[in-house]
Structures are given as structure tokens and as C-alpha cells.
């Protein structure tokens, strides 16, 4: 479980996040939504320790992150950042680096680490690409490699910033299944998504942000009913019960 309490953070002296509190439950998919520039990615960076918090606290499975080492934090939470370098290494090696927090100096990967990395790639359907250089892969396939790297980290909390960017619609739906599968495996899944319909479809809980503040955290149905989506996005989203379950669509 991930608990964020009264968190404020920013870059230098500029505070971007103001007094944010929410909880991402174990075994659930929690998604943060909001317009561009509202502070979603900054919030994830603050949670993962990439930028320091100026106030408030974060607890991972009950422990305050301020008491955890950087490696200890990485063992608790895997973070898939939004903007990523494309290193000149193979996809297999890239995924293997997800095991990095589990090593101690001098860090050398063991047989078990290779097996976990291979299993993570197999789960994403990219095991056959292990020897391919990252630079030769398409944007979507590369994104799958990054996701596999986060899975190989075997952290109880998985945090992903825009994981479906670069993925085609089929791959996005496949990712939705993976996210749900991770939650079913008792992982805490925290996502930032721009695709509202996907967020409503796969999430157990949704946090809505605006101008660095958290406006509301609730279930997708309650968020939809509150009217806050049309308030901040200026679009109307409708809910429809179908034979395939509940579906969401935009009303033009």
C-alpha cells in the first residue's frame, strides 16, 4: 500500500505540488488523471524520490520512505518514467537492469536474476527480442521493454507514468490486462494515464489533479457521477452497461 500525506514538492524554489494526500491500495489499480501540466508526473517523481518533498510524508507498506535507503525504496517501488533515454544495449540487458536494486557491491547478475528478467519479457510477449538492440526497436516495443524492466524489479508497488504512450490500441488493451493482472497478484499499481476511457475502464480508484492539487479520489463510477471530468476537461464521458461489461465513451 502507498500512502501520501500532505505532500508538497517542486523544482528549486518553485512549488508545483500543494498538500496532496491519497492512498493507493494493495491489489488495486489507482490512476492519476488531469490536464497537461497539472503536476501528475511531478507527483510520481516526488513519490519515487527523484525530486525531494518540501513537506508531507510518504509511506510504502507502512514504512516511511524517509527511513528507507535509495535501494530500499527501489525494492519497494518500481518506477517507469515518462521521458526515458534509449541506451545502446540489448533489450534483454535492459530488462535485467530491473534487478539492479536486489544486488550488492560488486553487482553481478545471477542465474535467478536472468530467469526473472526472461519471465518478465515473456509476460509482455517480447522474450524473442532479448538480443535485439534497444535502438532498433519500435517505440511501442521499446515501451514494452521498459514495462518488463519495471516488472523484473519485483517490487510490491509499481508506478508507471504514461505506460500506454507509443502503444497501439491492441497493445493498450493488452497493457490494461497486465495492469489488472499485477493488481490481482496483490501488487499496488499506480498509473498516470492521459486516456480517460482506459483509466475509467481499468482503475479501482481514480485521483483527479488540477494545478498541483488533488481535487478528489474515488471510484470511477463516483468520479464520473461527480461531473468533475467535464469540469476540468470540458468533455462529457458516458457510461454504458453492455454484454462485455461497463464501457465508457465520449459524447460529442
Amino acid at each position: 500500500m502507498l500512502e501520501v500525506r500532505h505532500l508538497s514538492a517542486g523544482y528549486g524554489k518553485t512549488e508545483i505540488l500543494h498538500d496532496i494526500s491519497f492512498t493507493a491500495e494493495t491489489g488495486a489499480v489507482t490512476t492519476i488523471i488531469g490536464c497537461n501540466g497539472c503536476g501528475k508526473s511531478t507527483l510520481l517523481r516526488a513519490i519515487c524520490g527523484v525530486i525531494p518533498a518540501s513537506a508531507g510524508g510518504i509511506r510504502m507498506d507502512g514504512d516511511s520512505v524517509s527511513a528507507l535507503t535509495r535501494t530500499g525504496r527501489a525494492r519497494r517501488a518500481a518506477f517507469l518514467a515518462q521521458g526515458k533515454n534509449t541506451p545502446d544495449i540489448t533489450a534483454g540487458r535492459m530488462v535485467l537492469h530491473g534487478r539492479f536494486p536486489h544486488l550488492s557491491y560488486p553487482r553481478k547478475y545471477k542465474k535467478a536474476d536472468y530467469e526473472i528478467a526472461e519471465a518478465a519479457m515473456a509476460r509482455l510477449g517480447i522474450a524473442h527480442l532479448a538480443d535485439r538492440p534497444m535502438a532498433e526497436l519500435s517505440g511501442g516495443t521499446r515501451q514494452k521493454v521498459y514495462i518488463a524492466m519495471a516488472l523484473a524489479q519485483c517490487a510490491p508497488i509499481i508506478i508507471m507514468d504514461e505506460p500506454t504512450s507509443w502503444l497501439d490500441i491492441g497493445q493498450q488493451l493488452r497493457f490494461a490486462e497486465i495492469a489488472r493482472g499485477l493488481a490481482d497478484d496483490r501488487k499496488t499499481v499506480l498509473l498516470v494515464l492521459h486516456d480517460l476511457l482506459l483509466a475509467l475502464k481499468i482503475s479501482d480508484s481514480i485521483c483527479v489533479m488540477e494545478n498541483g492539487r488533488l481535487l478528489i479520489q474515488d471510484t470511477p463510477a463516483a468520479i464520473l457521477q461527480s461531473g468533475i471530468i467535464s469540469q476540468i476537461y470540458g468533455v462529457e464521458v458516458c457510461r454504458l452497461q453492455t454484454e462485455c461489461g461497463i464501457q465508457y465513451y465520449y459524447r460529442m
Partner: protein
Amino acid sequence: MQSNSRRFRLLFIGAVLLCFAAVVLSLCLGSINFTPAQAVGGLLQKGEKTGINILRYARLPRTAACLASGTALSVSGAILQNVLSNKLASPGIIGVNAGAGLGVTICCALGNYYGLAVSLSAFLGSLITVTLICVFSGKTGASRTTVILCGVALNSILSAVSESVTVLNPDTAVLTAEFRVGGFSAVSTGRLLPASVLILAALLLCCTLFNELDVLTLGDESAQSVGLPAPAYRALFLVLAALLAGCAVSFAGLLGFIGLIVPHLVRKIAGNESRHLLPLCALFGAAFVTLCDLAARLVFLPYELPVGILMSVVGGPVFVWLLLRMKGGHRDA
């Protein structure tokens, strides 16, 4: 993943054999030629014969200097390229060598011509240069190309300061033209030994940090998300790169291109993973410099060229050829 390891093993064995062949040739060939058996016998014998003296006091230190400088500059170049995420970075191009050269010049101007003081001055000069480049790129958010241009500018400034010190202080006349282009004809064990110890220590430390170097290339956010304190490790690698380049410059002079050419060649044949890249850069770099020095000694017998000149003549066109062949090479700039 296994096919990569098999390929690396073959390349590693090939590089070791190439290095061995370069060492044998470097010891045996020159103004006086020896057979391998004579060379080994000469090195093991006691006595004061001319041949033995040539082997022991000229060929052996010279070959050791070639191996040490080739290894150090190649590995330093590979580290700089990874840490600065820029494949055009190398100690010669971004001014690290020039900083080390200024350190040596100032050290000589202060009356210290040999020993650990020269190596440490070179290290300090290269470290200050690397720090300046990092501060500049960090403060301004400079692009990769700008970082290189900044290094080129620093290179010119530092070379100009070195020249000024040499002109104003006659004591630094010991820094001959060969030092400024790089060469081994006057290599001294007084400079070579302390520098080699530092180079060996830096290489051993590098060998325990392959994965850290690779994780650093994933970018700060990704590196920190897997528990690597990126700024601290970036600083550590820059210190190691500066130490390697500085120590090499302290006895070999301002050798150019080696830190650029060798890592590029190795990347092309062995990929970019540090666990393969750094050991192969060390071996191929050592062999490359030793063979270039051998050629510089033999081509114009009885005269010899400073090896730095030969390297620039060979290295420049090879680098351009590599750039032209590099598919999508513009992405790296």
C-alpha cells in the same frame, strides 16, 4: 543473451592475442632487431651488453608505456562517452588531455619533473576540466553538441595557457614538441611507474562498476528508480575517466584520437554493454597504441615520428570513415 557472451569471449581471446603479438613485435623490432627468443633471453639475463640495455631500458619501458596509455585513454574515452551520453566525447576532444597537459606543464614549471607529483598534477588538471564541462552543461542544460563545443573551446584555452607557461618559464623546455603531440621516445620510468599504478587501480575499480555505468546511461530518473544515486556515480566515473586520461598524459603527452577511435571500433564489433566494452577497449587500445608506435619507429628508419602524429594521420580518416558508415550516426551527436 548467450550469443552475445560467446561473441565477447571470442573477441576477448582475439584481443589478448593481438596485444601479445604487439608486445612481441614492439620488443623485437626497431633500429636493432631481435628474435623473440633473443628478446626474452635478453630481458632475463644479467649484464651490460648493448642489446640487453636497449631491451631493458628502452624497448621494455616504451612498450609498457604504450600498453598503459592505450588502455587508459581508450577506457577513459568509453566512460566519458557513456557518462556524457555523447559518442563524440573523448579525452582529447573535450579538453581533458589539454587540462592534464597544463597540469604537467605547471608541475614542471614548479620544478617537479618526475614521480607521483607529475601524475597527480595531470590528474588534477584533467579533473578540473571535466568538472568545468559538467558544471557548464548542468547549469545551462546544454545540448550534447554544445557540451562538445564547450570542450573544444576549453581545449584551446588550456593549450594556450600551457604554451604561455612554456614560453615564459624556460624550465618547462623539457616538455618538447613530442609531449604536445604525444610520443614515447623519451618515456621515463620515473613518470611511468606511479602513473601505471594509478591506472591499474582505476581500471580495477572500473571492472567492478560495469552495471552501474550501464544503468547510468538509462537516464537519471530510470537510474534513481532502480536505486542508483545517479549524480554521485556520474561524479565517480568522471573522476575515474580524468584519472585514467591524466595519468596517461603525464608520461605519453597529448595523444589524440585514441579515446575516440578505439571505443567506436569496439562498439561496432562488440556492442555497447560496459562489461564487454571496457575490457575490449583496454585490450584493443593497448594493442593499437603499441602497433602505431612500432610503425612510427619503423616507417622512417633511422628517424622516428612521434606516435601522436601517426595516430592523427591514421585516426582522423578512420573516424570520418566510421561516421560515414554509422547508420543513423547523426542521432548520437
